Protein backbone atom coordinates (compact mmCIF):
# COMPACT_ATOMS: atom_id res chain seq x y z
CA UNK A 1 0.00 0.00 0.00
CA UNK A 2 1.32 3.43 -0.81
CA UNK A 3 1.76 5.88 1.95
CA UNK A 4 2.75 9.44 2.65
CA UNK A 5 6.43 8.65 1.96
CA UNK A 6 5.50 7.97 -1.66
CA UNK A 7 4.14 11.48 -2.14
CA UNK A 8 7.27 12.61 -4.00
CA UNK A 9 6.60 10.10 -6.79
CA UNK A 10 4.01 12.45 -8.26
CA UNK A 11 3.06 16.08 -7.94
CA UNK A 12 0.19 16.87 -5.56
CA UNK A 13 -2.07 17.59 -8.54
CA UNK A 14 -1.23 14.22 -10.08
CA UNK A 15 -2.13 12.43 -6.88
CA UNK A 16 -5.43 14.26 -6.76
CA UNK A 17 -6.17 13.47 -10.38
CA UNK A 18 -5.42 9.78 -9.82
CA UNK A 19 -7.61 9.77 -6.73
CA UNK A 20 -10.39 11.46 -8.64
CA UNK A 21 -10.31 8.83 -11.31
CA UNK A 22 -10.73 6.02 -8.79
CA UNK A 23 -7.20 5.07 -7.69
CA UNK A 24 -7.78 4.03 -4.10
CA UNK A 25 -4.11 4.12 -3.10
CA UNK A 26 -3.78 7.63 -4.47
CA UNK A 27 -6.87 8.67 -2.56
CA UNK A 28 -5.29 7.39 0.62
CA UNK A 29 -2.15 9.42 -0.05
CA UNK A 30 -4.19 12.55 -0.67
CA UNK A 31 -6.34 11.97 2.40
CA UNK A 32 -3.30 11.46 4.59
CA UNK A 33 -1.68 14.61 3.27
CA UNK A 34 -4.73 16.75 3.98
CA UNK A 35 -5.94 15.12 7.21
CA UNK A 36 -4.17 17.53 9.62
CA UNK A 37 -5.41 20.48 7.59
CA UNK A 38 -8.97 19.18 7.70
CA UNK A 39 -8.79 18.89 11.48
CA UNK A 40 -7.34 22.36 11.76
CA UNK A 41 -10.06 23.90 9.58
CA UNK A 42 -12.76 22.12 11.54
CA UNK A 43 -11.42 23.48 14.82
CA UNK A 44 -11.11 27.00 13.45
CA UNK A 45 -14.67 26.84 12.17
CA UNK A 46 -16.27 25.36 15.27
CA UNK A 47 -14.03 26.61 18.09
CA UNK A 48 -14.74 23.34 19.88
CA UNK A 49 -12.30 20.45 19.85
CA UNK A 50 -14.88 17.74 20.41
CA UNK A 51 -17.17 18.93 17.63
CA UNK A 52 -14.16 19.47 15.40
CA UNK A 53 -13.20 15.79 15.81
CA UNK A 54 -16.63 14.78 14.51
CA UNK A 55 -16.61 17.29 11.68
CA UNK A 56 -13.15 16.25 10.50
CA UNK A 57 -14.12 12.58 10.53
CA UNK A 58 -17.26 13.28 8.57
CA UNK A 59 -15.24 15.33 6.10
CA UNK A 60 -12.95 12.34 5.64
CA UNK A 61 -15.96 10.18 4.79
CA UNK A 62 -17.15 12.71 2.24
CA UNK A 63 -13.69 13.09 0.75
CA UNK A 64 -13.56 9.34 0.20
CA UNK A 65 -17.10 9.22 -1.14
CA UNK A 66 -17.18 12.32 -3.31
CA UNK A 67 -13.64 12.80 -4.61
CA UNK A 68 -14.97 11.84 -8.03
CA UNK A 69 -17.16 14.92 -8.03
CA UNK A 70 -14.24 17.31 -7.49
CA UNK A 71 -13.85 19.66 -10.45
CA UNK A 72 -10.13 20.06 -11.20
CA UNK A 73 -10.80 23.46 -12.72
CA UNK A 74 -11.12 24.74 -9.15
CA UNK A 75 -8.38 24.65 -6.50
CA UNK A 76 -8.52 21.40 -4.51
CA UNK A 77 -7.85 23.33 -1.31
CA UNK A 78 -10.99 25.42 -1.82
CA UNK A 79 -13.11 22.37 -2.62
CA UNK A 80 -11.90 20.50 0.43
CA UNK A 81 -12.41 23.52 2.62
CA UNK A 82 -16.02 23.67 1.48
CA UNK A 83 -16.44 19.98 2.33
CA UNK A 84 -15.08 20.55 5.84
CA UNK A 85 -17.21 23.62 6.30
CA UNK A 86 -20.37 21.77 5.27
CA UNK A 87 -19.53 19.01 7.71
CA UNK A 88 -18.94 21.55 10.47
CA UNK A 89 -22.38 22.98 9.83
CA UNK A 90 -23.99 19.58 9.87
CA UNK A 91 -22.29 18.69 13.13
CA UNK A 92 -23.48 21.95 14.65
CA UNK A 93 -27.01 21.33 13.40
CA UNK A 94 -27.03 17.85 14.90
CA UNK A 95 -25.78 19.19 18.18
CA UNK A 96 -28.54 21.77 18.09
CA UNK A 97 -31.09 18.99 17.72
CA UNK A 98 -29.58 16.84 20.44
CA UNK A 99 -29.20 19.61 22.98
CA UNK A 100 -26.08 20.26 24.94
CA UNK A 101 -23.42 17.60 25.03
CA UNK A 102 -23.26 15.36 28.02
CA UNK A 103 -19.52 14.95 27.86
CA UNK A 104 -17.70 17.23 30.23
CA UNK A 105 -14.46 18.30 28.70
CA UNK A 106 -12.03 19.54 31.25
CA UNK A 107 -8.43 20.40 31.09
CA UNK A 108 -7.57 19.28 34.56
CA UNK A 109 -4.30 21.03 35.03
CA UNK A 110 -5.53 22.29 38.37
CA UNK A 111 -5.23 18.75 39.73
CA UNK A 112 -1.51 18.83 39.24
CA UNK A 113 0.86 20.79 41.41
CA UNK A 114 1.99 23.90 39.58
CA UNK A 115 4.92 26.13 40.10
CA UNK A 116 4.46 29.88 39.90
CA UNK A 117 6.20 29.89 36.55
CA UNK A 118 3.89 27.20 35.17
CA UNK A 119 0.90 29.14 36.38
CA UNK A 120 2.18 32.26 34.67
CA UNK A 121 2.66 30.37 31.44
CA UNK A 122 -0.77 28.80 31.70
CA UNK A 123 -2.37 32.16 32.33
CA UNK A 124 -0.62 33.63 29.35
CA UNK A 125 -1.72 30.73 27.15
CA UNK A 126 -5.23 31.11 28.47
CA UNK A 127 -5.28 34.79 27.63
CA UNK A 128 -4.09 34.01 24.12
CA UNK A 129 -6.81 31.42 23.61
CA UNK A 130 -9.45 33.71 25.05
CA UNK A 131 -8.43 36.48 22.70
CA UNK A 132 -8.50 34.06 19.79
CA UNK A 133 -11.97 32.93 20.84
CA UNK A 134 -13.17 36.49 20.49
CA UNK A 135 -12.58 36.37 16.73
CA UNK A 136 -15.30 35.20 14.39
CA UNK A 137 -14.74 31.81 12.69
CA UNK A 138 -14.00 33.64 9.46
CA UNK A 139 -11.43 35.89 11.12
CA UNK A 140 -9.81 32.87 12.78
CA UNK A 141 -9.55 31.13 9.43
CA UNK A 142 -8.10 34.07 7.51
CA UNK A 143 -5.68 34.80 10.35
CA UNK A 144 -4.51 31.20 10.49
CA UNK A 145 -4.17 30.83 6.72
CA UNK A 146 -2.21 34.05 6.31
CA UNK A 147 -0.30 34.65 9.54
CA UNK A 148 0.28 31.07 10.65
CA UNK A 149 0.26 29.07 7.40
CA UNK A 150 1.91 31.73 5.28
CA UNK A 151 -0.69 32.03 2.52
CA UNK A 152 -1.19 35.37 0.80
CA UNK A 153 -4.57 37.09 1.27
CA UNK A 154 -5.34 36.22 -2.35
CA UNK A 155 -4.70 32.52 -1.70
CA UNK A 156 -6.73 32.66 1.50
CA UNK A 157 -9.57 34.34 -0.38
CA UNK A 158 -9.50 31.58 -2.98
CA UNK A 159 -9.55 28.92 -0.28
CA UNK A 160 -12.39 30.47 1.64
CA UNK A 161 -14.40 31.51 -1.41
CA UNK A 162 -14.38 35.21 -0.66
CA UNK A 163 -13.24 38.34 -2.49
CA UNK A 164 -9.60 39.34 -2.08
CA UNK A 165 -10.59 42.70 -0.68
CA UNK A 166 -12.73 40.98 1.92
CA UNK A 167 -9.89 38.65 2.89
CA UNK A 168 -7.50 41.57 3.33
CA UNK A 169 -10.05 43.49 5.36
CA UNK A 170 -10.89 40.44 7.48
CA UNK A 171 -7.20 39.77 8.15
CA UNK A 172 -6.68 43.38 9.17
CA UNK A 173 -9.66 43.21 11.53
CA UNK A 174 -8.54 39.87 12.93
CA UNK A 175 -5.05 41.10 13.80
CA UNK A 176 -6.36 44.31 15.28
CA UNK A 177 -9.04 42.59 17.36
CA UNK A 178 -6.77 39.79 18.55
CA UNK A 179 -3.98 42.11 19.61
CA UNK A 180 -6.30 44.62 21.24
CA UNK A 181 -7.87 41.81 23.26
CA UNK A 182 -4.47 40.45 24.20
CA UNK A 183 -3.27 43.76 25.44
CA UNK A 184 -6.52 44.66 27.15
CA UNK A 185 -6.54 41.30 28.94
CA UNK A 186 -3.01 41.71 30.12
CA UNK A 187 -2.87 45.12 31.68
CA UNK A 188 -0.13 43.89 34.01
CA UNK A 189 1.86 42.18 31.29
CA UNK A 190 3.70 45.25 30.27
CA UNK A 191 4.59 46.02 33.85
CA UNK A 192 5.90 42.49 34.31
CA UNK A 193 7.96 42.73 31.18
CA UNK A 194 9.31 46.09 32.21
CA UNK A 195 10.38 44.56 35.52
CA UNK A 196 12.14 41.60 34.00
Amino acid at each position, binding site marked *: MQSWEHMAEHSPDEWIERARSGDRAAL*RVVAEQWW*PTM*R*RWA*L*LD*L*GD*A*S*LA*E*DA*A*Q*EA*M*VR*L*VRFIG*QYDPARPFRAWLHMVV*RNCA*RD*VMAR*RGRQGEREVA*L*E*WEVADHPSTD*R*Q*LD*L*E*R*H*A*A*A*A*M*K*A*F*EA*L*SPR*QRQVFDLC*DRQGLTPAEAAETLGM*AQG*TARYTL*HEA*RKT*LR*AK*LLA*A*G*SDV*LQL*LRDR
Partner: protein
Amino acid sequence: MNCDRIRERLMEIPVAEFGQLESHLATCPECRALADVIVEAEGAIGLALDDFAAAGSFEDAWQRAERAEVVPVQGPWARRSVIGLAALAAAAVLALALTASRPSAVSGQAGETVVARWLGQSDVVVSPPPSPAADEHLDEGTDAAPRPGRAASRVPRGARASEPDALAVLNDVSELQPPGGDPERSAAGDERIARTLATCGQDLEPRAIMGRLDAPSIACVEAVYANTQRLTERDRVSRLLLANAWAAGDHTRWEQLVKRHLDEVSRADPDLCYKYAAFLSRRGVSRAEGVVRWSEVALENKDRWQGDTYTTRVYGLLKLRSRAAELLWRSAEERAAVTADDEARDSADRARALAATFAREWLDYARAANLDDTLAFDLCVSTAGAREACAE
Protein backbone atom coordinates in the same frame (compact mmCIF):
# COMPACT_ATOMS: atom_id res chain seq x y z
CA MET B 1 9.24 56.70 13.76
CA ASN B 2 7.93 57.60 17.18
CA CYS B 3 6.40 55.18 19.68
CA ASP B 4 2.80 55.95 18.70
CA ARG B 5 3.48 55.10 15.08
CA ILE B 6 5.43 51.97 16.03
CA ARG B 7 2.58 50.74 18.24
CA GLU B 8 0.12 51.40 15.48
CA ARG B 9 2.26 49.28 13.18
CA LEU B 10 2.58 46.56 15.81
CA MET B 11 -1.20 46.23 15.84
CA GLU B 12 -1.41 45.91 12.05
CA ILE B 13 1.48 44.01 10.53
CA PRO B 14 2.16 40.27 10.69
CA VAL B 15 4.59 39.07 13.32
CA ALA B 16 6.91 37.95 10.53
CA GLU B 17 7.41 41.61 9.62
CA PHE B 18 8.24 42.86 13.11
CA GLY B 19 11.89 42.77 12.07
CA GLN B 20 11.24 45.91 10.04
CA LEU B 21 10.80 47.75 13.33
CA GLU B 22 13.90 46.30 14.96
CA SER B 23 15.89 49.54 14.99
CA HIS B 24 13.22 51.12 17.19
CA LEU B 25 12.47 48.02 19.26
CA ALA B 26 16.13 47.63 20.14
CA THR B 27 16.12 50.98 21.87
CA CYS B 28 12.61 51.15 23.33
CA PRO B 29 11.78 48.67 26.13
CA GLU B 30 8.06 49.54 26.13
CA CYS B 31 7.53 48.90 22.46
CA ARG B 32 9.71 45.80 22.71
CA ALA B 33 7.49 44.53 25.52
CA LEU B 34 4.40 45.03 23.37
CA ALA B 35 5.99 43.19 20.50
CA ASP B 36 7.00 40.33 22.80
CA VAL B 37 3.46 39.88 24.11
CA ILE B 38 2.09 39.65 20.58
CA VAL B 39 4.80 37.27 19.34
CA GLU B 40 4.43 34.95 22.32
CA ALA B 41 0.66 34.86 22.27
CA GLU B 42 0.34 34.30 18.54
CA GLY B 43 3.02 31.63 18.74
CA ALA B 44 1.03 29.88 21.46
CA ILE B 45 -2.12 29.96 19.36
CA GLY B 46 -0.29 28.60 16.33
CA LEU B 47 1.28 25.75 18.26
CA ALA B 48 -2.02 24.86 19.89
CA LEU B 49 -3.61 24.57 16.45
CA ASP B 50 -0.65 22.58 15.13
CA ASP B 51 -0.99 20.15 17.99
CA PHE B 52 -4.69 19.61 17.49
CA ALA B 53 -4.17 19.14 13.77
CA ALA B 54 -1.47 16.54 14.34
CA ALA B 55 -3.22 14.73 17.22
CA GLY B 56 -5.83 12.81 15.25
CA SER B 57 -4.95 9.35 14.05
CA PHE B 58 -5.14 9.24 10.28
CA GLU B 59 -5.30 5.46 10.28
CA ASP B 60 -8.42 5.43 12.48
CA ALA B 61 -10.08 8.14 10.43
CA TRP B 62 -9.32 6.38 7.17
CA GLN B 63 -10.66 3.05 8.38
CA ARG B 64 -13.86 4.65 9.65
CA ALA B 65 -14.29 6.41 6.32
CA GLU B 66 -13.83 3.13 4.45
CA ARG B 67 -16.35 1.39 6.69
CA ALA B 68 -18.80 4.23 6.24
CA GLU B 69 -18.61 3.75 2.49
CA VAL B 70 -20.02 0.30 2.89
CA VAL B 71 -22.50 1.05 5.66
CA PRO B 72 -23.64 4.67 5.90
CA VAL B 73 -23.15 5.76 9.46
CA GLN B 74 -23.78 9.09 11.10
CA GLY B 75 -21.52 10.69 13.69
CA PRO B 76 -20.52 11.21 16.37
CA TRP B 77 -17.53 9.30 15.15
CA ALA B 78 -14.73 9.58 17.54
CA ARG B 79 -14.29 8.38 21.01
CA ARG B 80 -14.19 11.58 23.00
CA SER B 81 -10.54 12.34 22.78
CA VAL B 82 -9.41 13.74 26.07
CA ILE B 83 -5.88 13.15 24.84
CA GLY B 84 -6.47 15.47 21.93
CA LEU B 85 -7.74 18.18 24.21
CA ALA B 86 -4.97 17.82 26.68
CA ALA B 87 -2.45 17.92 23.89
CA LEU B 88 -4.02 21.05 22.46
CA ALA B 89 -4.09 22.88 25.75
CA ALA B 90 -0.64 21.67 26.66
CA ALA B 91 0.67 22.97 23.38
CA ALA B 92 -0.39 26.45 24.30
CA VAL B 93 1.60 26.20 27.50
CA LEU B 94 4.51 24.48 25.81
CA ALA B 95 4.63 27.24 23.25
CA LEU B 96 5.18 29.73 25.98
CA ALA B 97 7.75 27.57 27.68
CA LEU B 98 9.64 27.42 24.43
CA THR B 99 9.34 31.04 23.46
CA ALA B 100 9.35 32.86 26.77
CA SER B 101 12.74 33.60 28.15
CA ARG B 102 11.32 34.78 31.43
CA PRO B 103 8.18 34.41 33.53
CA SER B 104 5.27 36.53 32.44
CA ALA B 105 1.65 36.71 33.40
CA VAL B 106 -1.57 37.87 31.94
CA SER B 107 -4.39 38.83 34.19
CA GLY B 108 -7.61 36.92 33.77
CA GLN B 109 -9.14 33.64 34.76
CA ALA B 110 -7.10 30.61 35.65
CA GLY B 111 -5.51 29.10 32.58
CA GLU B 112 -7.20 25.73 32.65
CA THR B 113 -10.64 27.24 32.92
CA VAL B 114 -10.33 29.59 29.99
CA VAL B 115 -8.53 27.23 27.66
CA ALA B 116 -10.92 24.39 28.44
CA ARG B 117 -13.84 26.72 27.92
CA TRP B 118 -12.61 27.64 24.46
CA LEU B 119 -11.99 24.04 23.61
CA GLY B 120 -15.30 22.85 24.92
CA GLN B 121 -17.40 25.74 23.75
CA SER B 122 -19.34 26.17 20.58
CA ASP B 123 -19.51 29.43 18.66
CA VAL B 124 -21.04 32.23 20.58
CA VAL B 125 -24.64 32.64 19.59
CA VAL B 126 -26.16 36.05 19.93
CA SER B 127 -29.80 35.54 20.75
CA PRO B 128 -31.12 38.85 21.94
CA PRO B 129 -34.76 39.14 22.84
CA PRO B 130 -36.75 40.75 20.06
CA SER B 131 -37.29 44.42 20.62
CA PRO B 132 -39.92 46.55 18.91
CA ALA B 133 -37.24 48.68 17.30
CA ALA B 134 -35.18 45.82 15.98
CA ASP B 135 -37.96 43.39 15.17
CA GLU B 136 -38.48 44.75 11.72
CA HIS B 137 -38.34 42.89 8.47
CA LEU B 138 -34.79 42.62 7.29
CA ASP B 139 -35.64 43.62 3.80
CA GLU B 140 -38.61 45.81 4.39
CA GLY B 141 -38.96 48.30 1.60
CA THR B 142 -37.37 46.18 -1.07
CA ASP B 143 -40.44 44.16 -1.92
CA ALA B 144 -41.53 46.85 -4.31
CA ALA B 145 -38.15 47.23 -5.95
CA PRO B 146 -38.26 46.45 -9.66
CA ARG B 147 -36.79 43.19 -10.87
CA PRO B 148 -33.69 43.75 -12.94
CA GLY B 149 -34.69 43.82 -16.55
CA ARG B 150 -31.34 42.64 -17.83
CA ALA B 151 -28.28 40.85 -16.71
CA ALA B 152 -26.32 42.84 -14.18
CA SER B 153 -23.11 41.56 -15.67
CA ARG B 154 -24.01 43.07 -19.04
CA VAL B 155 -24.54 46.58 -17.77
CA PRO B 156 -22.01 48.93 -19.34
CA ARG B 157 -19.38 50.12 -16.92
CA GLY B 158 -20.21 53.43 -15.38
CA ALA B 159 -23.95 52.80 -15.54
CA ARG B 160 -24.68 50.67 -12.52
CA ALA B 161 -27.78 48.54 -12.56
CA SER B 162 -30.37 48.91 -9.84
CA GLU B 163 -30.02 46.34 -7.11
CA PRO B 164 -31.85 43.04 -7.52
CA ASP B 165 -34.78 42.35 -5.23
CA ALA B 166 -33.48 39.93 -2.63
CA LEU B 167 -36.96 38.65 -1.82
CA ALA B 168 -38.08 37.98 -5.38
CA VAL B 169 -36.78 34.47 -4.82
CA LEU B 170 -39.88 33.72 -2.76
CA ASN B 171 -41.90 33.74 -5.95
CA ASP B 172 -39.18 32.65 -8.37
CA VAL B 173 -38.12 29.36 -6.86
CA SER B 174 -39.96 26.21 -7.71
CA GLU B 175 -39.34 23.53 -5.12
CA LEU B 176 -39.87 20.86 -7.74
CA GLN B 177 -36.88 21.82 -9.86
CA PRO B 178 -33.48 22.13 -8.21
CA PRO B 179 -31.01 24.25 -10.22
CA GLY B 180 -28.77 22.21 -12.47
CA GLY B 181 -30.77 19.07 -11.79
CA ASP B 182 -29.82 16.39 -9.31
CA PRO B 183 -26.70 14.50 -10.41
CA GLU B 184 -27.56 11.56 -8.18
CA ARG B 185 -31.05 11.15 -9.56
CA SER B 186 -31.42 8.04 -11.72
CA ALA B 187 -34.01 6.98 -14.26
CA ALA B 188 -34.62 3.75 -12.34
CA GLY B 189 -35.15 5.69 -9.12
CA ASP B 190 -37.49 8.11 -10.86
CA GLU B 191 -39.55 5.28 -12.23
CA ARG B 192 -39.66 3.49 -8.89
CA ILE B 193 -40.81 6.52 -6.92
CA ALA B 194 -43.27 7.54 -9.63
CA ARG B 195 -44.90 4.11 -9.34
CA THR B 196 -45.10 4.45 -5.57
CA LEU B 197 -46.48 7.97 -5.70
CA ALA B 198 -49.10 6.91 -8.23
CA THR B 199 -50.80 5.00 -5.41
CA CYS B 200 -51.51 8.40 -3.77
CA GLY B 201 -53.46 9.74 -6.73
CA GLN B 202 -53.16 10.98 -10.28
CA ASP B 203 -51.37 14.17 -11.44
CA LEU B 204 -49.79 14.81 -8.09
CA GLU B 205 -47.18 17.27 -9.37
CA PRO B 206 -49.58 19.56 -11.27
CA ARG B 207 -51.90 19.53 -8.28
CA ALA B 208 -49.04 20.30 -5.90
CA ILE B 209 -47.95 23.25 -8.02
CA MET B 210 -51.46 24.63 -7.67
CA GLY B 211 -51.53 23.87 -3.93
CA ARG B 212 -54.41 21.50 -4.45
CA LEU B 213 -53.35 18.26 -2.88
CA ASP B 214 -56.18 17.11 -0.66
CA ALA B 215 -55.67 15.78 2.85
CA PRO B 216 -55.77 12.06 1.93
CA SER B 217 -53.20 12.63 -0.83
CA ILE B 218 -50.94 14.55 1.52
CA ALA B 219 -51.20 11.80 4.15
CA CYS B 220 -50.38 9.21 1.51
CA VAL B 221 -47.36 11.15 0.25
CA GLU B 222 -46.18 11.60 3.84
CA ALA B 223 -46.39 7.84 4.28
CA VAL B 224 -44.32 7.35 1.14
CA TYR B 225 -41.74 9.79 2.54
CA ALA B 226 -41.59 7.93 5.84
CA ASN B 227 -41.06 4.60 4.09
CA THR B 228 -38.52 5.74 1.51
CA GLN B 229 -34.91 5.17 2.43
CA ARG B 230 -33.09 6.46 -0.66
CA LEU B 231 -32.27 10.15 -0.29
CA THR B 232 -32.79 10.95 -3.96
CA GLU B 233 -36.29 9.49 -3.82
CA ARG B 234 -37.03 11.17 -0.49
CA ASP B 235 -35.91 14.39 -2.08
CA ARG B 236 -38.52 14.13 -4.78
CA VAL B 237 -41.33 13.26 -2.35
CA SER B 238 -40.35 16.04 0.04
CA ARG B 239 -40.32 18.59 -2.78
CA LEU B 240 -43.84 17.63 -3.74
CA LEU B 241 -45.07 18.43 -0.25
CA LEU B 242 -43.06 21.64 -0.13
CA ALA B 243 -44.47 22.90 -3.43
CA ASN B 244 -48.00 22.14 -2.33
CA ALA B 245 -47.66 23.88 1.05
CA TRP B 246 -46.17 27.01 -0.51
CA ALA B 247 -48.72 27.25 -3.30
CA ALA B 248 -51.54 26.69 -0.81
CA GLY B 249 -50.22 29.62 1.24
CA ASP B 250 -49.68 27.40 4.30
CA HIS B 251 -46.37 28.99 5.27
CA THR B 252 -46.30 27.48 8.75
CA ARG B 253 -46.43 24.00 7.24
CA TRP B 254 -43.96 25.02 4.54
CA GLU B 255 -41.46 26.06 7.18
CA GLN B 256 -41.83 22.75 9.01
CA LEU B 257 -41.33 20.90 5.76
CA VAL B 258 -38.34 22.91 4.62
CA LYS B 259 -36.62 22.41 7.98
CA ARG B 260 -37.22 18.69 7.70
CA HIS B 261 -35.94 18.67 4.14
CA LEU B 262 -32.74 20.53 5.03
CA ASP B 263 -32.13 18.38 8.10
CA GLU B 264 -33.04 14.98 6.77
CA VAL B 265 -32.76 15.03 3.00
CA SER B 266 -30.27 17.53 1.63
CA ARG B 267 -29.11 21.09 1.90
CA ALA B 268 -27.33 21.07 -1.45
CA ASP B 269 -30.06 23.00 -3.32
CA PRO B 270 -29.04 26.66 -3.07
CA ASP B 271 -32.45 27.81 -4.30
CA LEU B 272 -34.22 26.17 -1.40
CA CYS B 273 -31.72 27.47 1.15
CA TYR B 274 -32.04 30.95 -0.32
CA LYS B 275 -35.81 30.82 -0.25
CA TYR B 276 -35.73 29.73 3.38
CA ALA B 277 -33.30 32.54 4.27
CA ALA B 278 -35.53 35.07 2.50
CA PHE B 279 -38.57 33.65 4.28
CA LEU B 280 -36.85 33.99 7.68
CA SER B 281 -35.71 37.51 6.85
CA ARG B 282 -39.34 38.59 7.09
CA ARG B 283 -39.61 37.29 10.63
CA GLY B 284 -37.47 39.92 12.35
CA VAL B 285 -34.39 39.82 14.53
CA SER B 286 -35.40 36.67 16.35
CA ARG B 287 -34.80 34.74 13.11
CA ALA B 288 -31.78 36.70 11.91
CA GLU B 289 -29.32 33.98 12.89
CA GLY B 290 -31.24 31.62 10.65
CA VAL B 291 -30.98 34.09 7.80
CA VAL B 292 -27.20 34.21 8.18
CA ARG B 293 -26.91 30.46 8.47
CA TRP B 294 -29.02 29.53 5.46
CA SER B 295 -27.57 32.31 3.33
CA GLU B 296 -24.14 30.86 3.99
CA VAL B 297 -25.27 27.34 3.16
CA ALA B 298 -26.79 28.60 -0.10
CA LEU B 299 -23.61 30.48 -0.97
CA GLU B 300 -21.57 27.31 -0.52
CA ASN B 301 -23.47 25.78 -3.40
CA LYS B 302 -23.69 28.89 -5.55
CA ASP B 303 -21.82 27.17 -8.38
CA ARG B 304 -25.05 25.41 -9.29
CA TRP B 305 -26.36 28.71 -10.63
CA GLN B 306 -25.32 30.19 -13.92
CA GLY B 307 -25.38 33.51 -15.75
CA ASP B 308 -27.90 36.11 -14.64
CA THR B 309 -29.37 33.81 -12.04
CA TYR B 310 -25.95 33.47 -10.45
CA THR B 311 -25.45 37.24 -10.24
CA THR B 312 -28.92 37.99 -8.91
CA ARG B 313 -28.99 35.19 -6.40
CA VAL B 314 -25.49 35.78 -5.00
CA TYR B 315 -26.17 39.49 -4.64
CA GLY B 316 -29.48 38.78 -2.92
CA LEU B 317 -27.90 36.36 -0.48
CA LEU B 318 -25.05 38.69 0.40
CA LYS B 319 -27.58 41.41 1.03
CA LEU B 320 -29.86 39.26 3.18
CA ARG B 321 -26.89 38.03 5.19
CA SER B 322 -25.53 41.53 5.72
CA ARG B 323 -28.87 42.95 6.80
CA ALA B 324 -29.42 40.08 9.21
CA ALA B 325 -25.93 40.52 10.69
CA GLU B 326 -26.64 44.23 11.04
CA LEU B 327 -29.82 43.49 12.98
CA LEU B 328 -27.95 41.10 15.26
CA TRP B 329 -25.28 43.70 15.83
CA ARG B 330 -27.75 46.46 16.68
CA SER B 331 -29.63 44.15 18.96
CA ALA B 332 -26.38 43.15 20.71
CA GLU B 333 -25.45 46.82 21.10
CA GLU B 334 -28.81 47.51 22.72
CA ARG B 335 -28.27 44.66 25.11
CA ALA B 336 -24.74 45.81 25.93
CA ALA B 337 -26.02 49.30 26.64
CA VAL B 338 -28.65 47.95 29.02
CA THR B 339 -26.61 45.33 30.86
CA ALA B 340 -23.24 47.11 30.76
CA ASP B 341 -21.28 43.92 31.41
CA ASP B 342 -18.13 42.73 29.67
CA GLU B 343 -19.69 39.66 28.15
CA ALA B 344 -22.44 41.68 26.49
CA ARG B 345 -19.83 44.15 25.26
CA ASP B 346 -17.76 41.34 23.78
CA SER B 347 -20.84 39.91 22.10
CA ALA B 348 -21.62 43.29 20.59
CA ASP B 349 -18.03 43.64 19.34
CA ARG B 350 -18.14 40.22 17.75
CA ALA B 351 -21.50 40.96 16.16
CA ARG B 352 -20.16 44.21 14.77
CA ALA B 353 -17.09 42.51 13.34
CA LEU B 354 -19.26 39.92 11.66
CA ALA B 355 -21.61 42.55 10.26
CA ALA B 356 -18.60 44.50 8.98
CA THR B 357 -17.17 41.47 7.23
CA PHE B 358 -20.47 40.60 5.58
CA ALA B 359 -21.11 44.19 4.53
CA ARG B 360 -17.68 44.36 2.98
CA GLU B 361 -18.30 41.16 1.08
CA TRP B 362 -21.64 42.47 -0.18
CA LEU B 363 -19.99 45.72 -1.23
CA ASP B 364 -17.17 43.93 -3.05
CA TYR B 365 -19.63 41.82 -4.95
CA ALA B 366 -21.89 44.74 -5.86
CA ARG B 367 -18.89 46.57 -7.28
CA ALA B 368 -17.58 43.53 -9.13
CA ALA B 369 -21.00 42.85 -10.66
CA ASN B 370 -21.49 46.52 -11.48
CA LEU B 371 -24.67 46.71 -9.41
CA ASP B 372 -25.88 49.60 -7.32
CA ASP B 373 -23.64 49.59 -4.25
CA THR B 374 -25.22 52.46 -2.32
CA LEU B 375 -26.84 50.40 0.41
CA ALA B 376 -23.86 48.09 0.72
CA PHE B 377 -21.49 51.05 1.02
CA ASP B 378 -23.63 52.71 3.69
CA LEU B 379 -23.76 49.54 5.71
CA CYS B 380 -20.03 48.98 5.29
CA VAL B 381 -19.26 52.46 6.60
CA SER B 382 -21.72 52.06 9.43
CA THR B 383 -20.19 48.79 10.60
CA ALA B 384 -16.54 49.61 9.94
CA GLY B 385 -16.83 53.09 11.39
CA ALA B 386 -14.84 54.78 8.64
CA ARG B 387 -15.43 55.56 4.98
CA GLU B 388 -11.81 54.75 4.17
CA ALA B 389 -12.37 51.14 5.20
CA CYS B 390 -14.91 50.79 2.42
CA ALA B 391 -12.97 52.44 -0.36
CA GLU B 392 -12.53 50.63 -3.67
